């Protein structure tokens, strides 16, 4: 019994920050390559820090929500987020063992792959005529630049929760 409450409380950190990131994504940003995907960054952080709580299934479900919100075909963001999480789990040790700067460079690759998959799916479906480089490079760069900031913010939140647990 005590264990289940314990676990529930440790879920609140990821839950609220992910909801917060989703709301951030919902602001009327408009249609431009300069807008990063905040949910993707937050999801990446939690998959890296707490892979037992946030896994591929949560990524998939969040992706479906994101598809409804952007009125995209259902499943596009779901696949994109699952791929992102997979790559992070694949690179987990490298990411956890490197410095913040090194981590940021690895994350740049991850975000690059993610955005490429997104554009690829959209291209295969036939919504866009070609894969535009602006939409590939600019969001990846911005998301990578935001990574240290998000990591700092979210780690504080995570330590806060852990502190209460013990």
């Amino acid at each position, binding site marked *: 019994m005590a264990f289940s409450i314990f676990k529930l409380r440790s879920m609140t950190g990821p839950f609220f920050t992910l909801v917060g990131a989703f*709301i951030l*994504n*919902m*602001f*009327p*940003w*408009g*249609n431009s*390559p300069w*807008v990063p995907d905040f949910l993707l960054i937050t999801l990446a952080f939690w998959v890296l820090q707490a*892979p*037992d709580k946030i*896994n*591929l*299934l949560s*990524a*998939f479900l969040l*992706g*479906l*929500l994101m598809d*409804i*919100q*952007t*009125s*995209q*075909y*259902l*499943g*596009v963001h*779901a*696949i994109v987020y*699952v*791929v992102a999480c*997979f790559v992070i*789990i*694949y690179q*987990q040790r490298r990411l956890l063992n490197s410095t913040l700067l090194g981590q940021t460079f690895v994350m740049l690759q991850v975000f690059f792959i993610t955005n490429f998959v997104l*554009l690829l*799916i*959209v291209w295969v*479906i*036939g*919504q*866009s*005529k070609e894969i*535009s480089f602006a*939409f590939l490079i600019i969001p990846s760069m911005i998301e990578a630049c935001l990574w240290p900031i998000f990591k700092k913010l979210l780690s504080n939140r995570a330590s806060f929760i852990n502190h209460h647990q013990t």
Partner: protein
Amino acid sequence: MFRSPPTLFNQGAPFLKLFFFLLLGSVIIFADYKLHATEKIRLVGNNLLFPMQQLLSQPGKLSDLSLDYFQTRSSLKQQLEEQSSQLDNLRLMANQAEVLESENAHLRKLLSLQQKSNVKSLAAEVVFSPLSQSSQRIMINRGSADGVKSGMPIASEAGIMGQIVRVFENSSEAALLEDRDFAIPVLVERNGLRAVLFGVSRTEPLELRYVNNLADLDVGDHLITSGIDGTYPAGIPVAIISKIDRSSENFGATIACKPIAKLHHHRYLSVLLYQPTTTAPSPTESEVVKNRLRQKKGN
């Protein structure tokens, strides 16, 4: 469970899970894209998310509200006077407009022109445009409860902006002219030449297709709706021809046009409550589906 080693050490990359989710995702995309089977899920999700979206899109409204509350009596009185005088002016203008309208109708009859039907319109506000680089869509705050139906045109005061493609209860989604595969039948105002205008993408201008290479077209020609398909009322401005490329490499002339209405600048627009008189398929339906329907009919 307690005996298993910490997750950090026991997990390799979950290839099996990845393949499972990729497969599931592809199936869902297929179901949505080809079979349109997920409208129900979308409806539920949209109903959940819409209030939040509306809230986030107008943070300025709250401050406006509080300012209104603290207005003084004198300023209200002054406002009232101004408005009543304005109302008088407007009444006068309305009377004049009535006179002009009747005169106009009379002249039209004399010329035995076809009388243009007066299309009713509904003012709507753009709630947000989705964060997606591929589609040129906007959400507006009018839905089936206000009488909006799929296929109705949307327009600003300058001209046609697009068409409603998906209707929810209190909101609906509209495709803009630039949306890929968006098609609208037009005619050239100057000489009545008929053609079809296609959307390409946001970064490229609209394209006029199915015209003769030697057709009488010039840069600066105005294109208006022809009303042939029954979806759009006739005679509303759509676009201006911006560039003509008659090089012999292509099979026909490549004619680029730019929309007259500013598609990304308006916060308010009007939905023309114009009932489509034919059962033409919506422009969002993909070519594949259309071809399959045609084949079925052929069999």
